[in-house]
């Protein structure tokens, strides 16, 4: 599979990454190379092999349902760029 420059721009936008126009060609080449490796891997026969969800062969430990975190708003908001009435303020976004 080979990516186009447009694919690279779209991926960058989805990840909200600012990339330099002049680097697009090299990103396109590198990412396409990675995908080629994937293609090569997917040629391996994996019939009967369960997909691996995690490299560690363990299962999730569960926590007891208890409130252990107390209100720490003042400390968290001390490092926020802008706050008001206990809210974090961000540039207006309405979908």
């Amino acid at each position: 599979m080979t990516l186009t420059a447009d694919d690279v721009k779209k991926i960058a936008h989805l990840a909200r990454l600012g990339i330099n126009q002049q680097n697009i060609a090299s990103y396109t080449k590198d990412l396409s190379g990675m995908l080629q490796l994937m293609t090569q891997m997917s040629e391996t026969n994996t019939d009967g092999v369960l997909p691996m969800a995690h490299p560690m062969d363990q299962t999730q430990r569960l926590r007891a349902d208890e409130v252990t975190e107390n209100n720490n708003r003042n400390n968290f908001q001390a490092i926020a760029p802008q706050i008001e009435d206990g809210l974090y303020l961000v540039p207006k976004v309405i979908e």
Partner: protein
Amino acid sequence: MGHHQEHEWETVIGLEIHTQLATQSKIFSGAATAYGAEPNTQACAVDLGLPGVLPVLNGQAVSMAVKFGLAIEAEIAPHSVFARKNYFYPDLPKGYQISQFELPIVGKGHLDIDVDGTTKRIGITRAHLEEDAGKSLHESFHGMSGIDLNRAGTPLLEIVSEPEMRSAKEAVAYMRKIHELVRYLGICDGNMQEGSFRCDANVSVRPKGQEEFGTRAEIKNINSFKFVEKAINHEVERQIELIENGGKVVQETRLYDANKDETRSMRSKEEANDYRYFPDPDLLPVHISEEFKEQIKGQLPELPDAKKLRFKGQYQLDDENAVILTASRQLADYFEALVKESTCEAKLCANWITGDLVAVLNKADLDITQSPVNYQRLAGLLLRISDDTISGKIAKQVFEAMWNSTATADDIIAEKGLKQITDTGAIEAIIDKIIADNPDQVEQYLSGKDKVFGFFVGQVMKDMQGKANPAEVNKMLKIKLK
């Protein structure tokens, strides 16, 4: 609807219901989930997505999801996996929502709904665990948005149905059934005003007989039964009109505006639905053992359908009473406690609850657990109806007094002198007086106007302030007027 010139249309509906699980703490952190706290006082470092934090799964959320799965006879996945759903929005600080994608905890199940006297089985595709997002407030922050992350990380169970509902009515019946079920199971408080139970509806239309589905629109965030019905009906009408006028339905997300009773398109960017799910490396697969499943199975309460059936058999209730009394576990418990305590006929108990009690509770916006008249006091009242101490009519008066005080029925009956008069001598004296005072009516009655009989009963009851035993009055009047 009435735009059916060309085709007869069939509606196809699937629902995604988000239920907030009633845990004390969040799904991946130890912050509280209580509703209504000051903004951001229940948002810890994990909920804020600060660098270096790691999620730790709440066991209770897992138990609740399994409980739901067992109640809908679904497959419970022995291994389920959490995945990241990636999108950017300020009330989602990590830039992804932890959800489940390929391997949800609850697989295929089903639920039966009753619409217009017929039962229909609706398939449930899956139910998966995920975290809720925070809240964005767009008003009055001088051009900025305010973010409250108290809700971020609250556990959600998203229940996805098959597209098997064919009318708004069926969709509402299904939504109500899920609502009833999650409350029975005690896994969600079902509070729709507070957003604990909300729903997205996927709606499409197709010419009747066509197998292929039409293009669907998704109506987001509907938080009442009334709105789900109105929103779907509106959307169906919009789609039919659009197609019949030569247009095409586009796949998009629409918002229901309750004030205008219409759905409108949310500006959908092309890449908006490119969530790039992948397994979350911060969380290991969740393993559900057979023992764990058995243990949860042992905790399942009697479910609504089973209870309804039992009530109809054990207490000889009609369908309507059985439906009302099993609408919540608490109401059903109240009924059974009342029957036991009062030793009265179940039908009398059922009628008093579904008639008088439920009416005043609704009027006062209370649920059965908040009823000022507990089952012990109501039992005291019903006992006095059963043993003829008071008539059903006087009982309503006593009930009203009980509602407004803490007195027992016996106290009120004694205090207000409401005890039914069964002393035949006293009743006879009054009857004689009424007959003597109304010679015209006596003549009418004797000349064959049977209706006048009611007049005499009324006069006697009035004179005795309703306290005479009606059966006794009838019997004696018949004799006296011969």
